[in-house]
């Protein structure tokens, strides 16, 4: 099984990654520019006619800004943009980390059941939160749903990893199967909660499952970011370890890498980032798999660049998808999960189509 994993990684990893580091750095610069553009667009475009430029000009002249315009910019677009950056980066980096950890380019928190676990945590908090002791509820407050999603994501990541890893080797097929089982289990438990939920909660949960950045407020953003940020900051420090792991765990160990520590930190980071992202925005699919894969095709699999570039491209992509979701049927909104799935579904199929010979699953 490890031979299979190694072969699967082979055709991508043997293409002299070192030769592409300059390209990868150029990609980083290009993505940073792209993200900056996406941030500007996200602040400037929206259903309301509020113009970013006229507001900035008014501020520069020291004039007061109409309340409606200032609310649209600072209470709606600004937190929403920040949340888009955080969630997009978190999803893409989680995907890249999972793929590095499992040595398989098809791993993704959404596909292998981690997203479902985080979703279960969030749904449980929404439906059963009122049943918790008042002390816990009051202590956690706004943090209840993100923390529950984080715990759900963390537990399913741990279970997945334990099941799929035997004698230090991670089996690709086992991972996918265990992921499907985990996803089904989490889905079933979510189903029980949905059954308990009242009519109003039910309709909320349906839309929640499609994902949206529409609920972005400063309090939500400031709740989610402290959970995501450590994971995003920690990710680049795992690059060397993950690069070593592509050779297999034994080889990585002989390279002087603390294999178990890398694995533990990566699992914790994935759980935190996915958990917080799911809690903030619901189920947003395919960012975690499409973004790292596009970057590998573009600039190679070296995690030193892959992780940073994934964060940049993930953030930019989600902002663009969000701009589409809130303008295409304005003043109503399309759930962003629909936009990313419509864009990501075909790309994912194309990846499967191209790699079906290599994977041999």
């Amino acid at each position, binding site marked *: 099984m490890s031979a299979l994993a190694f072969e699967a990684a082979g055709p991508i990893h043997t293409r002299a990654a070192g030769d592409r580091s300059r390209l990868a750095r150029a990609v980083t610069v290009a993505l940073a520019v792209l993200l900056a553009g996406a941030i500007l667009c996200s602040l400037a475009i*929206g*259903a*309301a*006619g509020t113009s970013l430029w006229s507001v900035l000009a008014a501020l520069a002249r020291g004039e007061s800004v*109409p*309340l*409606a315009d200032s*609310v*649209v910019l600072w*209470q*709606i*677009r600004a937190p929403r943009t920040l949340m888009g950056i955080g969630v997009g980066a978190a999803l893409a980096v989680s995907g890249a980390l999972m793929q590095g950890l499992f040595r398989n380019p098809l791993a993704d928190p959404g596909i292998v059941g981690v997203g479902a676990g985080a979703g279960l945590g969030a749904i449980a908090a929404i439906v059963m939160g009122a049943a918790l002791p008042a002390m816990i509820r009051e202590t956690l407050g706004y943090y209840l749903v993100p923390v529950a999603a984080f715990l759900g994501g963390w537990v399913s990541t741990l279970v997945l990893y334990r099941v799929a890893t035997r004698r230090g080797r991670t089996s690709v097929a086992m991972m996918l199967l265990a992921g499907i089982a985990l996803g089904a289990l989490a889905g079933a438990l979510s189903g029980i909660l949905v*059954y308990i939920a*009242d*009519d*109003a909660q039910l*309709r*909320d949960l349906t*839309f929640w499952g499609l994902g*949206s950045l*529409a*609920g*972005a*407020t400063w309090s*939500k953003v400031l709740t989610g970011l402290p959970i995501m940020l450590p994971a995003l900051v920690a990710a680049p420090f795992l690059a060397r370890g993950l690069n070593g792991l592509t050779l297999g765990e034994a080889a990585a160990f002989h390279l002087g890498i603390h294999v178990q520590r890398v694995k533990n930190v990566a699992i914790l980071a994935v759980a935190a980032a996915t958990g917080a992202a799911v809690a903030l925005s619901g189920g947003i699919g395919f960012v975690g798999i499409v973004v790292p894969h596009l970057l590998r095709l573009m600039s190679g699999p070296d995690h030193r660049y892959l992780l940073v570039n994934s964060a940049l491209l993930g953030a930019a992509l989600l902002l663009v998808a969000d701009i589409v979701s*809130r303008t295409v*049927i*304005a*003043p*109503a*909104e399309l*759930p962003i999960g629909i936009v990313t799935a419509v864009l990501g579904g075909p790309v994912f199929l194309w990846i499967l189509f191209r790699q079906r010979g290599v994977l041999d699953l």
Partner: protein
Amino acid sequence: MMPPLARLAALALALAAAPLAAQERPDRIVSIGGAVTEIVYALGEEDRLVARDTTSTYPPEASTLTDIGYIRRLSPEGVLSVRPDLIVTEAGAGPPEAVEVIGSAGIPFVEIPEGFTRDAILQKITAVGAALDVPDKAAALRDQVATDLRRVGAAAEVADKRVLFILSMQGGRIMASGTGTAADGIIALAGARNAVTAFEGYKPLTDEAIAAARPDVILMMDRGEGHETARAQVLSHPAIASTPAGEAGALVRMDGLYLLGFSVRTAAAARDLAAALETVGR
């Protein structure tokens, strides 16, 4: 009717500063929820509406208004983009974050209490009238609707009919109404009995529970598919086929908002339902 210039001035004022304009009579109103929109039209105040939500499908003219999306998934920027000076909504508009943000823009947000009884309808009319600052018109409409509702009397034989309201039949799984719902309310208003009282809200029913409920009539929303198709689908369901309703072929279908809206048309809906219950399956 204000002279055009004054109207323009009021509009300019509203655009310049929403909270100031709130002290004037609001004339850029967003109506959210089918029942509320119907009441606004019945009050004859539709000229003051600028937008509605997806569930506001009656009267047909309402569809010419800007649609700001689904009542539970409002986009704060979308709502603000129509520059409203008043938002009148059914209970349950959300998400809460969106409502909070809209409130921070200083736009009055009036929630009309929900309810599925005669009195609840009258309270809704009063509340909408107060929000729109037309209490006299509201009182008149209220009296008219109250009289109308009092006239809904059930024939004696309807009173024994057990009615099973089916919300949906996704993949053969039947979602039925228990107590405390609009469906339960309209069945009571029409003078019949709800066949399922074991739970609150809408829940999936097992085939055995359907058999045990022994409905005389199946009630559903008309979703625009052909009546015969729907009829064949519902009555051939194995669990329903063995009930009195299935054997008699007693299926009543009515427009969802008309049947369940609990608004100004509800008296008529209850009368129609009572009449349908009386004749169906004969």
